[in-house]
């Protein structure tokens, strides 16, 4: 691994004098255009759908009479439609687009058979639409994270098989001799997800296991979807864009290897901490708690690697939208993961387990980390495949501040409310309805935060559509930044 310390830099057109490579990259980018646009467009649509269901469910939790007579929108269904729309609609579509764009670039391989990807994308989105309609119509399986009815899943399987096969082909035909750490994460994620998903489908829906073994399968799956699918893809993006935008290599190559393997080893045991105190064998829970604590290693190692790369370059946050979203995501990853380890502690779990604290934590992971990283990635990728610039820096700024403040209020408010709820619930002297009443102010703060985030999503969607529709302008010679740096060479 002689040349490893400069791995990231060696691919970087901004720091490389090699114009041939730059031409090659734009050829690769151009080849990803159609499928990337398809997946990103779908992702943005699902984001808006998911946000709508999010607001409906959030209002219902403090004002249950809101839309109370509509069976299709009863809380249990609207909330589930929200989860599936933002996970399988928004997050997975965005993850696919970012993954194959990164994979093509890092493998230095032109995207072949993009028709295959388009078919996969069509299958996936039809599958998600059918699944969510099924949930709203009352066909939910009521298995957390696997609510889509059985008739939607074959469509998702076909889509996934095509995408997985495609990614392996691209990697296989790649010209790059090195395997950059982002590619490790992507390959692992693309391999882990179908395994998790098919085991869960088989052992929970086709041939359900007996008794609470189901709960173990359920949380092995659901937690690993976060840890072994979204997390690796999010980290792959951070590992790529952070050095890319800053124009300097990642802090330490060896730390990134340690971070990868310790994540692979520990994360997949951690999911059973969702069953602390439940009717499953105590040893599995203990193992899950131990694994959750061990997760501090990959998190701290990855955190050091990311944040040390940033040190000395904080000034760039003033200019680059991509960097601002990615850094917000990377910092959130560190915080949310360390909190997650803490939540696996038996004493902490006794209080926060069945409360809104968990909901706040889930949103900190999926939104403050993953979604923010995806936003940042999209701000970088889209101009390069469309050869146009973002029409409005003001809208990007609005997007950033509304969602950044929104998710912070969301997580802080609901976390405090959740701890309070847990402490009160564990004190049998406080009547249950009192506990419920005391959560309402925090649920209201969540709705306010949600409305703020909705404004951000709308700003993002408007900017996205505007960019697609407007003709290529002659002034598109420099990227859209929050403000133009006095003398910073801008990498394109």
């Amino acid at each position, binding site marked *: 691994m002689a040349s490893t310390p400069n791995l990231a830099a060696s691919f970087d057109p901004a720091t490389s004098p090699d114009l041939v490579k730059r031409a090659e990259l734009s050829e690769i980018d151009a080849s990803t255009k159609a499928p990337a646009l398809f997946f990103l467009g779908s992702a943005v649509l699902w984001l808006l759908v998911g946000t709508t269901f999010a607001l409906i469910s959030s209002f219902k939790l403090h004002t249950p009479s809101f839309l109370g007579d509509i069976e299709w929108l009863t*809380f249990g269904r609207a909330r589930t439609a929200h989860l599936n729309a933002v996970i399988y609609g928004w997050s997975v579509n965005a993850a696919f687009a970012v993954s194959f764009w990164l994979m093509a670039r890092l493998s230095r391989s032109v995207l072949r058979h993009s028709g295959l990807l388009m078919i996969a994308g069509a299958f996936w989105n039809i599958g998600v639409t059918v699944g969510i309609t099924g949930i709203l119509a009352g*066909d939910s399986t009521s298995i957390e994270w696997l609510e889509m009815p059985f008739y939607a899943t074959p469509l998702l399987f076909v889509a996934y098989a095509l995408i997985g096969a495609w990614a392996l082909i691209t990697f296989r035909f790649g010209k790059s001799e090195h395997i950059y750490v982002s590619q490790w994460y992507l390959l692992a994620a693309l391999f*882990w997800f179908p395994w998790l998903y098919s085991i869960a489908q088989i052992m929970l829906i086709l041939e359900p296991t007996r*008794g609470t073994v189901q709960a173990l399968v359920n949380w092995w799956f659901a937690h690993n979807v976060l840890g072994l699918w979204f997390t690796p893809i999010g980290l792959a993006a951070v590992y790529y864009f952070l050095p890319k935008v800053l124009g300097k290599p990642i802090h330490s190559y060896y730390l990134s290897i340690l971070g990868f393997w310790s994540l692979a080893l520990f994360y997949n045991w951690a999911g059973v901490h969702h069953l602390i*105190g439940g009717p499953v064998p105590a040893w599995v829970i203990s*193992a899950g708690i131990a694994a959750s604590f061990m997760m501090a290693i990959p998190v701290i190692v990855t955190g050091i690697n990311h944040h040390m790369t940033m040190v000395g370059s904080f000034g760039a946050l003033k200019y680059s939208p991509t960097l601002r979203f990615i850094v917000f995501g990377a910092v959130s990853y560190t915080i949310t993961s360390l909190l997650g380890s803490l939540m696996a502690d038996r004493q902490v779990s006794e209080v926060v387990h*069945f409360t809104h604290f*968990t909901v706040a934590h889930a949103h900190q992971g999926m939104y403050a980390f993953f979604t923010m990283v995806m936003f940042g990635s999209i701000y970088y990728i889209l101009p390069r495949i469309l050869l146009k610039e973002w029409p409005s820096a003001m809208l990007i700024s609005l997007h950033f501040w509304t969602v950044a403040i929104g998710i912070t209020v969301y997580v802080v408010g609901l976390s405090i409310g959740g701890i309070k709820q847990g402490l009160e619930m564990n004190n049998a002297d406080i009547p249950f309805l009192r506990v419920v009443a005391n959560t309402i102010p925090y649920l209201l703060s969540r709705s306010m935060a949600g409305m703020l985030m909705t404004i951000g999503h709308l700003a993002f969607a408007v900017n996205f559509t505007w960019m697609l529709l407007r003709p290529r302008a002659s002034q598109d010679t420099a990227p859209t930044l929050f403000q133009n740096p006095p003398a910073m060479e801008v990498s394109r």
Partner: protein
Amino acid sequence: MNRAPLIFLGIFFTLAFSWTGIILTNQLTYGKLQPIVDETENKSYPEALPGLAAQGKLVYQDLGCIYCHSQQVRRPGFGADDKRGWGDRQSVGRDYIREGRVLLGTMRTGPDLRNIGARQTSRDWHMLHLYDPQITSKGSTMAPYAFLFETRKIVGQPSPKAIKLPAPHTAAAGFEIVPTPRAEALVAYLQSLKDTYAYPETKNVFVEPAAAAKKTEGKK
């Protein structure tokens, strides 16, 4: 220097490790847990759900009740499940072996329902509570399920199934509010939820709520 096969092997074995440990091992050790046959009663426990209750469970699943209600009682001293009267004993693995879909749940926006059938035995209470939770539990944030009921014009004798609504909620004169078959099924399911049988393994962990309180006092 192609290290892809090595990386791939690592990726494979890490997940295989937890799959073997969490799923396979537990499937082998208690995945075939059997009901207990009580010879004095000539019955086996846990009992299968009666037909109507089994249909009601599907309604419970389709409405997404699991997102606010857990179905698992934690041991005395860990949380306040026992003191809140959510169950006389901790839930154990055997309680769930007759269930095609296990609905443990991870959220308690509302109370645990594992023993709701033992706690609220009245059909009328369940019907009113589903129709509008504010009638029975003022201040609750539970969704109203009035769409599981029909407002019908009274023709001849009023239906014996019609629900008896208190003052401000009563139906217009000449009309009655009757539960649909789905509401009947759901209530049958809720009434069936009770883990009252003491298995050999629960006898060890069974603690009278009062005794448990004393015990924790003693520890302090």
